């Protein structure tokens, strides 16, 4: 591809440092996204998914968070070398983020109309009336009627609130939308509505989508590509088709085997034995080796590099 990537993460390392310990949240990840792509970032609690996103946005809480190495290029521009003012411009206009809990993402004492117009007026030079018009149009796209402009967040249900948050993220037509577990707090029938909405908006606007989730089913239905995170590393990366059909990494295999299936006989599940490592005390070799069925002598001694072309995995078996 000769195109310039929308987002390039190169060798990113992030720690949370306190007096007692250093938590290694993100440990050398590389990731490239092109225009219009949707990428699922999958992992369990504490895998470093959210820290990765906060790093992209340059919003890692400091202290205790510290990006110790790496580059984050948004359309070639290194976010880490930018001034705070420039990054503020990029957030909203260039990159937007949807958080998991729609309730905490909205101000409870301000009407949703006011909150949304504020976004427009912060990032674009428009009059109050123009901003209102833009907001009403955007709300209608996501299925919120115009007579709800003056309602407060508590008057909305969870699914409707998430629609408002999605509107807020898309108002300035960002080139990259980061959605952190956008449907985890919602019921399945509402999740289906919201995912369809995100898919439609994304394909119509050409926005790139970085979707963070613990649910491989959501990835299968929404994304083109997928990155599997474990203990702060991307252990497998590829197209959804490749990763789901020809799974390479033992951790990814373990995840698939842990999920109860919706069809076929209900066989005994094969969980991954043990627990994820303590991020303040990571193993020396492969981060998954203490739980891996296929562990070899070298796995404990030396960390495997990223292997493979296109569909890659950090595993000696590849």
């Amino acid at each position: 591809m000769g195109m310039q990537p929308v987002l390039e993460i190169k060798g990113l390392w992030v720690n949370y440092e306190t007096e007692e310990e250093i938590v290694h949240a993100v440990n050398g990840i590389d990731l490239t996204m092109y225009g219009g792509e949707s990428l699922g970032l999958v992992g369990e609690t504490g895998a470093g998914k959210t820290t990765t996103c906060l790093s992209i946005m340059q919003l890692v809480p400091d202290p205790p968070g510290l990006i110790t190495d790496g580059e984050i290029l948004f359309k070639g521009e290194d976010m880490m070398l930018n001034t705070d003012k420039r990054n503020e411009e990029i957030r909203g206009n260039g990159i937007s983020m949807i958080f998991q809990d729609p309730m905490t993402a909205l101000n409870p004492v301000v009407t949703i109309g006011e909150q949304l117009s504020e976004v427009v007026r912060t990032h674009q030079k428009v009059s109050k009336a123009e901003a209102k018009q833009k907001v009403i149009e955007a709300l209608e796209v996501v299925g919120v009627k115009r007579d709800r402009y003056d309602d407060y967040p508590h008057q909305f249900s969870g699914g409707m609130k998430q629609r408002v948050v999605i509107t807020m993220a898309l108002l300035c037509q960002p080139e990259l939308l980061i959605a952190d577990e956008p449907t985890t707090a919602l019921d399945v029938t509402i999740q289906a509505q919201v995912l369809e909405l995100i898919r439609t908006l994304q394909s119509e606007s050409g926005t790139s989508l970085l979707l963070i989730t613990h649910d491989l089913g959501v990835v299968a239905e929404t994304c083109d590509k997928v990155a599997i995170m474990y203990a702060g590393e991307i252990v497998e990366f590829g197209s959804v088709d490749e990763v789901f059909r020809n799974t390479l990494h033992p951790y990814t295999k373990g995840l698939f085997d842990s999920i109860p299936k919706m069809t076929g006989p209900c066989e005994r599940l094969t969980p991954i034995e043990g627990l994820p490592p303590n991020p303040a005390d990571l193993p020396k070799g492969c981060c998954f080796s203490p739980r891996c069925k296929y562990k070899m002598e070298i796995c404990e001694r030396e960390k495997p590099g990223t292997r493979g072309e296109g569909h890659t995995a950090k595993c000696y078996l590849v």
Partner: protein
Amino acid sequence: MSVLLEVRNLSKYFRVASGALHAVDNVSFTIDAGKTLGIVGESGCGKSTLGRAILRLQEPTAGRVFFDGMDITSFSKEEMRQIRQHMQIIFQDPYASLNPRLTIAQSIEEPLKVFQPKLTEAERRNRIEELMELVGLSRRNFNAYPHEFDGGRRQRVVIARTLAAEPRFVVCDEPVSALDVSVQAQILNLMMDLQKQLELTFVFISHDLSVVRHISDAVGVMYLGQIVEYADKDTLFQNPGHPYTRALLSAIPSVDLDERRERIILKGEITSPINPKPGCRFAPRCEYATPQCTAADVELEDAGGGHMIACVRRRELFT
């Protein structure tokens, strides 16, 4: 197989400012000893209230619950206290259901003190160690506190504490929902092993249909306080007969790339359970609704072989 639990026309209403909130409305079912009944439904459908009403943790507004042939809804407080030894509950959040100031051994010890007061201290200690082993906790964690544990191991402590009472029947209210998928699989396997080993009977409440399909023998689907469909697991998942069940099943994102089903995207959201109007409560969101659906209340009817469906159009649809 003998019936261990029968729930007959159970209702639980809550009085609110604007009227009566019908959390559970006229629910009936039976469970055979050693089996699992899965209850699925979305937030606010009344599945947790149902679980609590069965144990009289919330006093039912109407209806009866028979445990081993005894009508426990007529029991006195003292009789209820005695029978609760056999009827236990596991909650969703293992962080909230353990006392942070007790060691895990002390937590597991509590039911032993209550229900087996004659045990000596040494006998109690042995029993605690046995229970810890049973749920896969190492003996060296005897004096650990809950905060030292992750969610999965905390849920193991909760299960050990539940089993200390030696129950025959357990209501499991979303016991794996707070856990990551790899840990969730460990706990599901543990619960199924224990069920076989100790001949336990479960009501398993969950919003996750794949988990319910995995663990249940029969499944009831709840919508706004009512069971709208009930069948053995295979029938319900292969041949759902209620429009709501069909929409629910189609909404689950699947990891199987070859199983791209047609999606039924429901319009609108759950309506209010306060003073519900007569007729089918799902009708406002149902693509098949006719005036007939809201004319009168819809009862569960047998569509054959115990496959119960509450839908007036069940004969014309999906057969």
